């Protein structure tokens, strides 16, 4: 075998391996496999079709809801609440996480406050938020934001605390002041952890918003599911469940995409 030929072959192989094309393309579609298994199990009687109707039988209900525009309206309501809540929670979570991670005095003073608030189940304060903010959008934004805040805050602070001290020494000896040190060392060092926090946030945000919409709302996928229970419409319930998990899944993908753009140095 001539060397150039084998070298080319190797280069091609490395390039293909690197991109992992097959797995990357197939990856997002594997959840479909779950639906197929479900379909078969339900039709064969392995699953009780009253509670677990085959996915194809839900498609009709799905189409009706889409045609009427109901599903889109509810999905959009949920999405916008999650979106606004994510931003409202993540930004202060990020800033405070960096501040408390980088400044021991702040951590000593205010760390216990956050630690004592953390164990409160976020959904438990919904009634209070409904009192304060009313039944409108604000109460939904705030409850999502609170949930998101803790995920992002603790992960960011942990990321900063785990930064090797040498990086701060480099900043100092390069003449970086406090703000420069935060923006050029503490923030990027924490970024992989920030994204861990964001991914957890997305999952948490959909849990919180669904629960909030059960009781405090007349719109959103959570409301759709809850009202389906009232009318014993199992198919509609499933449409809601599938829609909200799909939304959560896509939001997670989006965060992953953002991570690959913003954290190119982390190995996957």
């Amino acid at each position, binding site marked *: 075998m001539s060397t150039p030929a084998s070298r080319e072959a190797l280069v091609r192989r490395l390039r293909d391996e690197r991109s992992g094309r097959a797995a990357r393309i197939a990856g997002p579609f594997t959840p479909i496999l779950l639906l197929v298994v479900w379909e078969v199990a339900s039709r064969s009687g392995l699953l009780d079709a009253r509670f677990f109707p085959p996915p194809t039988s839900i498609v009709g209900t799905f189409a009706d809801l889409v045609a009427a525009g109901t599903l889109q309206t509810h999905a959009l309501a949920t999405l916008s609440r999650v979106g606004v809540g994510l931003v409202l929670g993540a930004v202060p979570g990020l800033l405070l996480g960096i501040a408390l991670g980088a400044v021991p005095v702040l951590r000593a003073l205010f760390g216990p406050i956050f630690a004592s608030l953390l164990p409160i189940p976020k959904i438990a304060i919904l009634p209070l938020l409904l009192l304060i903010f009313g039944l409108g959008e604000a109460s939904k934004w705030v409850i999502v934001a609170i949930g998101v805040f803790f995920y992002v805050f603790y992960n960011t602070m942990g990321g900063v605390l785990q930064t*090797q001290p*040498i*990086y701060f*020494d*480099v*900043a*100092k*000896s*390069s*003449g*970086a002041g406090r703000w*420069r040190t935060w923006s*050029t*060392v503490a923030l*990027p*060092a924490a*970024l992989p952890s920030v994204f861990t926090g964001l991914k957890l946030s997305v999952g948490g945000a959909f849990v919180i918003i669904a629960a909030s919409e059960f009781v405090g709302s007349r719109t959103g996928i959570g409301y759709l599911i809850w009202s389906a229970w009232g009318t014993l419409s199992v198919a509609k319930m499933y449409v809601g469940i599938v829609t909200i998990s799909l939304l959560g899944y896509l939001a997670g993908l989006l965060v992953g995409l953002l991570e690959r753009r913003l*954290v*190119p*140095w982390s*190995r996957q």
Partner: protein
Amino acid sequence: MSAPAIDLRGVWKGFHDARRDQTVIAVEDVSFSVGRGEFVCVLGPSGCGKSTLLRILAGLDRQDLGEVAVKGHASVVFQEHGVFPWLSVEDNVGYPLKVRGAGRAERRRRVGPLLELTGLTDFRGAYPHQLSGGMRQRTSVARALADDGEILLMDEPFGALDEQTRLVLQQELLRIWQDSGKSVVFITHSVDEALTLADRVLVMSARPGRILADVPVPFGRPRDILELRRDPRYGEITYELWRLLRQGAATASAGAVPTGPDASPASPAGPPGAPAGRGTPPSPPSEVRTP
């Protein structure tokens, strides 16, 4: 001769571990000066306080006793290189410039030649995890050169590298240094490395770190680091340095578990041929740091 670039007088540094109620004296009564444009190696066994000394010189730590005068800005190459994993090679090298507010264009203009100098041009866009250890260390050296202090402090920068890579980088460093006129303090635990690079070698004892001797290196400049090893004087000084290191280890273990200044053994004077300092009266330093 003009005022020294670095002047240390009776510098002490200790660490107290409150949990174990134990005090470790890392640097004990260290005095020396480094002339402008001089290349000085600090040679000592690991754990003897070399990094502590360098951190004090860099202004990252403060001595507990004594005076430290550093004339001008000191750029540091750290032992654990400290190359930022989140920046490309090019941005790592340009980091000190960015901190000082240099724009993208200016950074590019100044970083380009340094990448060329350190052989990193082809890897300018790579991230540190894609580099070999040698290339990461080059990045760290290039960053210190971009920082462009009048003083260059290097803490065992080539310690983790293989012999060949180390020789190449040593030769490059000498070339860079000779063109730059910087004053260099280079820390190493290798006798060979100290002789290869230095004008003077400061030999440190095992903990607590004291300066045992200030040994001038007779080889001329520019140095060929290979030919150097054929010089008969090379073997002689090598022997001398090893003898000093052994002596330093012996006195250190005799005075084990230091609990304070009074408990330390008397420092042995350097050998007759190796005066402490260069006999130049120090002129008033521009910046004196006291604890």
